[in-house]
């Protein structure tokens, strides 16, 4: 049997507000929480679609940004954790939101 696939998925209430260039904030209108994110964060956010796993997201980020550091995987998963802790995303297990 396949191991269940846990994939991050955006909270549909979260607003991505691009402000200057590709710098942005994530905003939760219910809690009024905001989180400032850089252009890489914006790219990660757009890949958090409930389909891609963290490894796939890291891979796509590597392809998109040539200057991504060696520790990209850790940074990306830390960032996704931060999104989760702040309620900006949830996880889905085999496509079912948890």
């Amino acid at each position, binding site marked *: 049997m396949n191991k269940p696939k846990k994939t991050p998925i955006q909270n549909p209430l979260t607003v991505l*507000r691009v402000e*200057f260039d590709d710098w942005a904030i994530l*905003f939760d209108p*219910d809690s009024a929480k*905001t989180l400032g994110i850089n252009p890489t964060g914006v790219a990660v956010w757009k890949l958090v679609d409930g389909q891609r796993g963290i490894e796939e997201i890291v891979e796509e980020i590597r392809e998109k940004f040539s200057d991504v550091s060696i520790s990209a995987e850790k940074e990306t998963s830390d960032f996704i954790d931060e999104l989760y802790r702040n309620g900006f995303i949830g996880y889905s297990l085999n496509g079912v939101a948890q």
Partner: protein
Amino acid sequence: MNNLSALENATLPKIMRSPRIVRLEISSNCNLRCLYCYYFENSAVDYSNLPTEQWLQFFVELGSMAVTDVSLSGGEPFLRPDLTDLIDGIVQNKMRFGINSNGTLINDHIAEYIAETHRCNYVQVSIDGSSSEVHDSCRGEGSFVKAVRGIKTLQRHDVPVVVRVTLHHHNVHDIANIAAFLLDELGLSGFSINSAGYIGACRKNADEVLLTRQDRQIAMDDLLNLPQKYADRITASAGPLYEAKHWPKMEAARMNHDPAFPKGGHLTACGCPFNEISVRSDGMIIPCSMLAHMVLGRINSDSLQEVWLNNPELNRLRMRRAVPLNEFEFCRGCNYMPYCTGNCPGMAFTLTGDINQPSPEACLRKFLAEGGSIT
């Protein structure tokens, strides 16, 4: 005529893709007629009201631009019979809201409705005195009792409530009582304070309501001398408290020949056009309520994004900060210039007829020349 070549040659600073806050004057009606009201009696304004659907349509546009916050004002927003529909539209488009009100029409039903949205940043109620006698002197009989009842209703429903105090000739001696009433008796965590300005209906009643130079001195001194337990909880971005705190810094800098303050020496006040934009009750887009004559477009006909980024008049307002104060006869020879921002453009317009002027109403040199003192 001033030489404003700096404005012609200025380059536009970086602008956010969309405003953070959009201020909506949703109602041109009010059940009060405060003597110093900034909103009414502006000949440039059409005091008509948009139907519900037009506001709702506009909220979809705001949501798509990722605007996070709106404020609802007027006039009196609680006079709109469709207020709950408008709030629903704001919530559906993932925004939060604040409401500026005279507080007199707030009942349990609407307070509960607001609380249940979980999207309300604040309801701001205006209180101008510690008693009916003082508050009602400019706001009309019975308004104090109703406004206080409104605040208590909001508190009962856990709606975040804030208070704005406007100082004028008839309440300037009540400052300590107002602080005690709001902070001790009503248990508010704080309040903000300003003074009536020569704009809107206040122009007609200026002699009766505006602070005289002596009143302003009293207000500044009393506000600085409040017990610490109150002082830390009162905020101001303009008016006597702001001046009482900021002007001594300008004076100290002048005495020490300090380098210019970061925004000093130019028409840098204020930052609003970089963060927010407003809409009149008739749907006209304006930079802010203090510049209600300056129509930039119309909602649902003009794209707000386009207006925000590319309207030439709005961008000229933003570039005003390139204009040095030494271009103005009014400021010539002033030693405070490196520390001065030229003050509110809305007040500059209403007092001088020209937005690209320093506003004399918040001029430190003028205040001192008229016999004022700072500590």
